[in-house]
């Protein structure tokens, strides 16, 4: 039986190919749903900004439907929304993504997953991508979300919560910490 090819870091020199033009603009004016801006940061274990990270995002549309043939939930695909984003961090380790808030997605069995975005982090020094999820602080369904429930430590659960901007609605702050005392929860998929 073939074995999965071994991962390697993206290294520091991927910028000419991987970050697509407008890769951080996942939704346009015609996309259904609540437009949001995610203001993200990527930090290392000593809280230094990671200026050569690449972030990929994958999410359902406003109706909770993925643009993929295996999503057989009822609900419609929004032709203006693929649900994929890819953006490189800047010199301050910051990135900006414009998208819409995803709807809730069916979980296993009869469970429902609260609105969330799948996140992959790639960088020099990261041999295999790190996988996490972004949830929305105070979001509907967070308290019943089966994936959040897997994280026993409530303080660690907080690392997955994007925080609303205190001044401007629709703007969400999300910090990824690849190590250190406030290390983000990462998943084995």
């Amino acid at each position, binding site marked *: *039986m*073939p*074995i*999965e*090819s*071994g*991962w*390697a*870091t*993206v*290294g*520091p*020199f991927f*910028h*000419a*190919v*991987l970050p697509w033009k407008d890769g951080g603009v996942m939704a346009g004016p015609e996309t259904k749903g609540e437009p949001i801006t995610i203001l993200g940061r990527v930090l290392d*274990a000593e809280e*230094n900004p990671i200026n050569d990270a690449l972030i990929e995002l*994958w999410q*359902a549309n406003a109706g909770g439907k*993925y*643009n*993929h043939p*295996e*999503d057989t939930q009822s609900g419609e695909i929004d032709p203006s929304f*693929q*649900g*994929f984003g890819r953006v490189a961090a800047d010199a301050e380790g910051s990135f900006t993504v414009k998208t819409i808030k995803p709807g809730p*997605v*069916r*979980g*296993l*069995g*009869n*469970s429902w*997953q609260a609105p*969330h975005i*799948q996140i*992959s982090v790639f960088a*020099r*020094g*990261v*041999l*295999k*991508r790190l*996988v996490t999820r972004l949830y929305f602080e105070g979001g509907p369904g967070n308290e019943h979300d089966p*994936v959040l429930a*897997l*994280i026993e430590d409530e303080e*660690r659960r907080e690392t997955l919560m994007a925080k609303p901007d205190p001044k401007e609605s629709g703007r969400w702050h999300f910090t990824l910490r*690849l*190590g250190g005392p406030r*290390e*983000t*929860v*990462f*998943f*084995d*998929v």
Partner: protein
Amino acid sequence: MDPIPYRRETPGTQPPALWPDYRSTVLRSPRKPLIALPHTLSEVTGPIFSHDRLQPNDADLTSQHKDRPIGDRMIVAGRVIDENGRPVAGTLVEIWQANSAGRYFHARDSRDAPLDPNFTGGGRTITDDAGQYRFITIKPGYYPWQNHENAWRPAHIHFSVFGPSFVTRLICQMYFEGDPMLPFDPIYMSVPSEAGRKQLCAAFDYDLTVPGFGLGYRFDIVLRGRDATPFEADDHAH
């Protein structure tokens, strides 16, 4: 009904997060255990890209500029399959690499080696129905890096592949069989098993070699596959 899950990662196939021989991992590796995520719709779906994503000459890195780049022209081709040996059709494959002098077309690569105005080192293609891809490029050069005293990366090409789902994503590096730098390279050596490392080495292939044009190298890529025996996952449904 619940989605059919993918097989979990096979132990011994993947590099650890913390690999001190590769210094940059030290501050960029989570230390708390990863939490196993069951495969829901969010994991078994993923982006699918159409040919609209491609530009002419995306798969021919030697024809993207006014003239031909300097270096040994070569063909790199192979198949993308899954752990069950099935072809992964219609998936996006992206590559990037240094030029023949071992320098990247990149603002942060300030090494004392020439840039080649005819080579930017980026390519893109989509696999055919048999999972096959093919690039024309030049052989990348060696380059030194700061990881340790007298450190040189083996010649390599970076590959990024999506596969059919979020779970199947892969970024790896293709090396060349017999490259003398391989045993000294902590990135190559971070793949635990010898079989896994060997699989990352492209082999010279006469059949892919084009007379009067360039040598051929075969590089097959294996993505995660589904559990071989799908089960009725309705035990959650009550």
